[in-house]
């Protein structure tokens, strides 16, 4: 009888690709068992390629109720037993268990990282009945046929247990923190108010919220101070150029005025011309963080979106594994083969051919390394389908960055012309490329504009065209956006490349922060305040980083999982005791914050009548019907009110009507959302009414 091997993969799309790559005809048979897909491929033996659905096992409280803390006893269990939304994972586990009974060998082919290794370990251990000890490991960084075949032919003899231990520890430590602290906050609020509201925090979430609160405090307490600057334009050979004054800012208005008076309408003279050549090295290859930052600044994609799109491109074998911290491209990836393959695409043909013509291909590399994967690079495969715009953009960005790292340095010339007027100095600056170098490969993503200057000589006369004083004020520090927050987390060494983007999203979904340029809500302030006051260690960046480093050491066998867990429990115990002892006061603070947050969620905008009150979604005490009313009604100042639809969900849209400028309300009824302008006199409404009348008349005739 033919021997058979069970290959465990991370998700259905990866299973299909792996089966296709390993089947000698490239046509594996797709089987569906109880709705669970798997693939039968034939090579030297029969291959059963079965997907997981991400994590099929999770950590659960070993015994006891859900609504108490502290909890330190846990076990790994199927996800369907712990999460209501994970019911389908039961069938998945059952099918994999059945398939495991009829095979002769096991191979783990999940992504080669903490999560992938843990997914395959749990499946092999729990669903396949202790096969983690005999299973082999396929290690690959791209899902290309060539690499998958090589990974299958030369598998690692066993699973990477150090990586698995590190992954397990991370999940367990995060569970201990998350479950205990979140329950402490939620229960404190529930016991005080009698109402349930989910409040959460975690090992990384707490310190991240702390950064945001720190910045928000600076912004909200900011007092601007005045300063003055000059806006100066000169005319040279018929063209106007902007120049800058030798002192960028003035602390006193009269000092700025004195310069204006001395220079306005005068003739200046070119005193010196300084020309410098600058060499600009090519950029380093993308790790996930750098790709996320670049995609945010170029396309406005959130880190999570970029990560999701990059993962899809990886599954389609267009780019290498994206969740990497490496900034290095080893020669083993075969630069020449990739460039040759890319040159088949018309838009890369010329550039790739140019690089192929070089004597040596040597990439510029960054400092960071990742033992499991190289930096992100294109596999050379071309899309088999029309890519969607975000996919196209990220793929193009990865391809062009890959080519740019092999380019020559760009050489830029900068010119600084010093113009003297009445003892004052102004600078005219110009820059241009002398040699484009790598920038040619990275176009249109290069951010360096040229500013060309006319030919000038020392002693040449220049007309001061415009000298104006500008009144300015200092500005508060900028708000974090998803990309700058991700960079901050990376700099501080908290979270992992795979989890940082999700943590930012969690802060949004919990209502602790809002908007893209992140604003901390009152609820966020109060949660951070409670954590900072009663368990400062939990929000300490230093403490979180140290724990992070210990967990990383497990990967290199220089730290033990047991030690980290024991330390975590001993750190958490006093913190939880403190929280329990102060439950009443914490509950009171959090209940007030939740109440304020719920009120805030119902505010639609400013009242157009009294202009001092806020319009809010309110409920009539008599009829329980909802309507929009002004908050000044309770002070007896304003009686403005508007009707609202009584069915479906209604919430502020945070947008204004394009026609009348009134705030809009978002209404969702039977999955058909629409924006409602509740201004009875909005001209858009009248137009719409007329249009409907016309239509019904036409239909009638």
């Amino acid at each position, binding site marked *: 009888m033919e021997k058979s091997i069970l290959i465990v993969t991370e998700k259905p799309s990866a299973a299909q690709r792996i089966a296709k790559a390993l089947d000698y005809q490239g046509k594996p048979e797709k089987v569906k068992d109880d709705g669970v897909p798997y693939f039968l491929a034939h090579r030297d033996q029969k291959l059963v390629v079965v997907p997981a659905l991400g994590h099929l096992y999770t950590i659960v409280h070993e015994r006891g109720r859900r609504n108490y803390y502290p909890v330190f006893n846990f076990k790994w269990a199927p996800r369907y037993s712990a999460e209501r939304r994970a019911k389908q994972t039961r069938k998945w586990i059952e099918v994999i268990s059945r398939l495991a009974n009829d095979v002769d060998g096991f191979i783990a082919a999940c992504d080669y990282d903490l999560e992938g290794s843990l997914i395959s370990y749990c499946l092999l251990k729990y669903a396949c009945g202790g096969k983690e000890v005999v299973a082999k490991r396929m290690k690959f960084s791209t899902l290309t046929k060539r690499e998958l075949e090589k990974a299958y032919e030369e598998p690692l003899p066993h699973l990477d247990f150090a990586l698995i231990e590190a992954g397990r520890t991370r999940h367990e430590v995060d569970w201990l923190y998350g479950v205990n602290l979140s329950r402490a906050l939620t229960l404190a609020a529930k016991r005080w108010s009698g109402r349930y509201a989910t409040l959460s925090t975690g090992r990384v979430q707490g310190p991240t919220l702390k950064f945001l609160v720190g910045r928000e405090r600076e912004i*909200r*307490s*900011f*007092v*601007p*101070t005045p300063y003055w600057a000059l806006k100066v334009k000169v005319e040279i050979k018929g063209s106007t150029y902007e120049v800058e004054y030798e002192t960028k800012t003035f602390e*006193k208005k009269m000092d700025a005025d004195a310069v204006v008076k001395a220079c306005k309408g005068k003739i200046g003279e070119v005193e010196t011309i300084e020309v410098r050549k600058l060499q600009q090295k090519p950029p380093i290859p993308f790790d996930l963080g750098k790709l996320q930052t670049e995609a945010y600044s170029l396309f406005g994609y959130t880190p999570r979106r970029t990560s999701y799109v990059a993962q899809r491109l990886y599954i389609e074998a267009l780019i290498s594994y994206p969740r990497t911290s490496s900034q290095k491209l080893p020669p083993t990836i075969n630069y020449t083969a990739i460039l040759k393959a890319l040159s088949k695409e018309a838009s890369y043909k010329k550039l790739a051919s140019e690089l192929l013509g070089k004597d040596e291909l040597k990439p510029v590399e960054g400092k960071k390394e990742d033992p499991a994967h190289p930096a992100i690079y294109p596999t050379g495969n071309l899309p088999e389908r029309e890519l969607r715009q975000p996919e196209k953009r990220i793929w193009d960005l990865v391809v062009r960055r890959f080519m740019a790292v092999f380019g020559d340095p760009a050489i830029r010339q900068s010119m600084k012309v010093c113009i003297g007027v009445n003892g004052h100095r102004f600078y005219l600056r110009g820059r241009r490329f002398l040699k484009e170098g790598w920038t040619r490969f990275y176009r249109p993503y290069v951010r360096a504009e040229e500013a060309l200057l006319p030919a000038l000589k020392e002693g040449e006369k220049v007309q001061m065209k415009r000298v104006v004083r500008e009144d300015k004020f200092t500005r508060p520090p900028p708000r974090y956006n998803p990309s700058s927050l991700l960079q901050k987390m990376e700099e501080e060494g908290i979270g992992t490349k795979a989890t940082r983007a999700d943590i930012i999203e969690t802060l949004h979904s919990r209502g602790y922060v809002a908007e893209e340029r992140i604003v901390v809500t009152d609820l966020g302030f109060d949660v951070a305040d409670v954590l900072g006051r009663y368990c400062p260690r939990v929000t300490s960046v230093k403490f979180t980083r140290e724990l992070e480093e210990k967990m990383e050491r497990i990967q290199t066998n220089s730290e033990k999982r047991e030690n980290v867990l024991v330390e975590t429990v001993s750190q958490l115990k006093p913190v939880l005791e403190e929280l329990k002892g102060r439950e009443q006061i914490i509950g009171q603070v959090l209940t007030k914050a939740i109440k304020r947050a719920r009120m805030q969620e119902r505010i639609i905008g400013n009242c157009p009548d009294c202009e001092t009150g806020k319009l809010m979604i309110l409920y009539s005490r008599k009829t329980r019907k909802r309507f929009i009313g002004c908050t000044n009604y309770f002070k007896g100042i304003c009686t403005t009110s508007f009707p609202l639809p009584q069915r479906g969900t209604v919430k502020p849209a945070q947008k204004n009507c394009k026609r009348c400028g009134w705030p809009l309300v978002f209404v969702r009824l039977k999955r058909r959302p629409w924006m409602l302008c509740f201004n009875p006199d909005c001209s858009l409404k009248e137009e719409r009414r007329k249009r409907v009348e016309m239509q019904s008349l036409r239909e009638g005739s």
Partner: protein
Amino acid sequence: MKCKVCEREAENEYCELHEKAHRNILREYGVWKKASDVSWKQYLIEVAKNPHTGVWAKEVAESLISETK
């Protein structure tokens, strides 16, 4: 004791959040005075209407203006 501006608990006149804004208002008056020789009241008015002023600083400035009336 309640904060002069909001309902939060306060050790002195202001809660912890508004206290920082109050300190900033006191500190920056020196810069304003040196730059354009404004009076304390005029300074508070300027701060309260400036778009770059933080929300808490604005609230404290408004509370101080109403006290000086």
